[in-house]
């Protein structure tokens, strides 16, 4: 099952039809650019919107989510919208997450800005889908990155942690497994995601309205919201770094490797640590991915045989085996 197939296909078509490479010597003329703009305009319609593709519906169903889920509006967590334009403050736990695509500026060296826009939009839309699929709220879009909240008043903290980890794992999977090789084949090296996630408990998080009049947003003030982007910047290529509070919720050491340097020093003898999260193992353990002969992950939500499989595609692997029987 290729959950992100539609997003990948749009990126593929945009790249393949980009006029930059074939006109490197003489440069791009305005008619060429105009034709490219028209093409990209039509191609944008192929991106999944509110209507989910068949594969996305299947995946949503498998995760126990309604096939017709509504995308949450940006910037206002529904449990705290009442704070808008007030002086009220509420303490409530939340998981803050930051994820973005690194080295994406290299795209501008190879493609028109229209192509870059569509690539970025495809990744952002795929990420928004993954966040909403896992019950998260996109708070802000920042270029090719997202700031996200997981949790709220009607959800268990542990469930929200698991959802956050699943969501960010799926986005990391999309860029690492579906896009990275394709970009490398097209001369763009080392595109990858980096992500940071941390949980602030209720006594550690203030929800409030920041700004003046309409020029503001309901947001959080928390050490842990502030640490999440720092963790993101510390993450390895395609990596997710999480805070100690996340690890204590999950209580499964096999997924977390403590980094040598703390992410925060309280300057009273206490230190707050950060951990590399083994998201690939997490996806497999949670039946969201399986592995092929080489150990490469493929997202899947059920273990039923794919109805579109073809023995031609199995032959290269199967033909390595030639069985024999010698038991009595």
């Amino acid at each position: 099952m290729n959950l992100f197939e539609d997003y990948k296909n749009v990126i593929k078509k945009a790249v393949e039809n980009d006029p930059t490479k074939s006109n490197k010597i003489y440069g791009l003329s305005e008619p060429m650019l105009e034709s490219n703009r028209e093409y990209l305009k039509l191609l944008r319609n192929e991106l999944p919107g509110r209507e989910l593709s068949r594969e996305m519906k299947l995946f949503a169903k498998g995760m126990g989510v309604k096939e017709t889920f509504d995308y949450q509006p940006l910037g206002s967590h529904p449990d705290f919208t009442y704070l808008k334009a007030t002086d009220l403050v509420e303490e409530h736990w939340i998981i803050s997450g930051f994820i973005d695509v690194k080295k994406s500026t290299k795209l501008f060296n190879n493609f028109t800005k229209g192509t870059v826009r569509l690539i970025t939009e495809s990744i952002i839309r795929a990420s928004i889908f993954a966040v909403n699929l896992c019950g998260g709220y996109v708070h802000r879009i920042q270029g090719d990155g997202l700031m996200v909240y997981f949790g709220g008043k009607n959800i268990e903290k542990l469930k929200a942690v698991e959802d956050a980890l699943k969501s960010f794992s799926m986005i990391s999977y999309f860029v690492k497994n579906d896009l990275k090789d394709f970009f490398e084949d097209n001369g763009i090296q080392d595109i990858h995601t980096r992500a940071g996630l941390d949980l602030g408990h209720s006594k550690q998080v203030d929800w409030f309205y920041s700004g003046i009049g309409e020029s503001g947003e309901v947001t959080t003030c928390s050490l842990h919201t502030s640490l999440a982007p720092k963790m993101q910047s510390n993450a390895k290529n395609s990596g997710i770094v999480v805070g100690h509070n996340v690890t204590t919720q999950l209580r499964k050491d096999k997924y977390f490797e403590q980094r040598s340097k703390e992410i925060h020093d309280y300057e009273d003898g206490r230190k707050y640590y950060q951990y590399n999260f083994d998201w690939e193992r997490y996806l497999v353990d949670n039946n969201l991915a399986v592995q092929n002969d080489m150990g490469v992950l493929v997202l899947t939500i059920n273990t039923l045989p794919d109805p579109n499989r073809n023995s031609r595609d199995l032959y290269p692997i199967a033909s390595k085996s030639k069985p024999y029987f010698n038991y009595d």
Partner: protein
Amino acid sequence: MTKTNLNCDIDSFLGKYYSFKDVHSPKPGYLALEGKISVLDKKGKLWGQFEILILINKVEYPYTIPIVIEKTQIIDRDWDYHISKEGVCCLDIPHKLLKSKKRGITFEEFYRNVIYPFFANYHYKESTGEYANGEYKHHFEGIAQFYQEEFDLENFEDIIALLETSIGGIKHQPNIECPLCGKPKYKKCCRKKVYSLKGYGMQQLKIDLVLFRQQLLKRKKVLG
């Protein structure tokens, strides 16, 4: 191949294939891995899953062949599927496995090139009616087929002569007419086969020699 550390190889495998874990071994002296194998084709389409148990001889590793047991009983315990009643999978003809054993294996490669393809091939057969690369016939006929395919020899007397030369370490002059099959130059003919045979180990060659002699005798009796 130098002796490698089994624990290192297994740690590396478990660090990459997440659906496996090491478990208590039912067989003393063996390391046991249990897990799920998901058969995916080159387009990433899923064909099915099997729960398997892999047993690796701790002392002999890397000069060993892991035992693979299919636990889910998805594969019928029928010899057409190359599996024993207990679920032990017959991964390949013993000769090829012995050659790997003699050279030494790395477990991850063995998983990728032998274990995983065995299960992929099951699905291939279920889908198309035959194995992707054919199969060896059962028991002795499979051994004869192996000699025919690997050494281009059908005549049992030629095979016996080849085995006797290899087992006995008999040396022939390279430029004489081949004493085994009669072609002009021994060095361009059966000498390579004699050397190649040694890779399967003396024990297997002796077993094969006995089998071919018995079969030849049977044939002669039938022909009167």
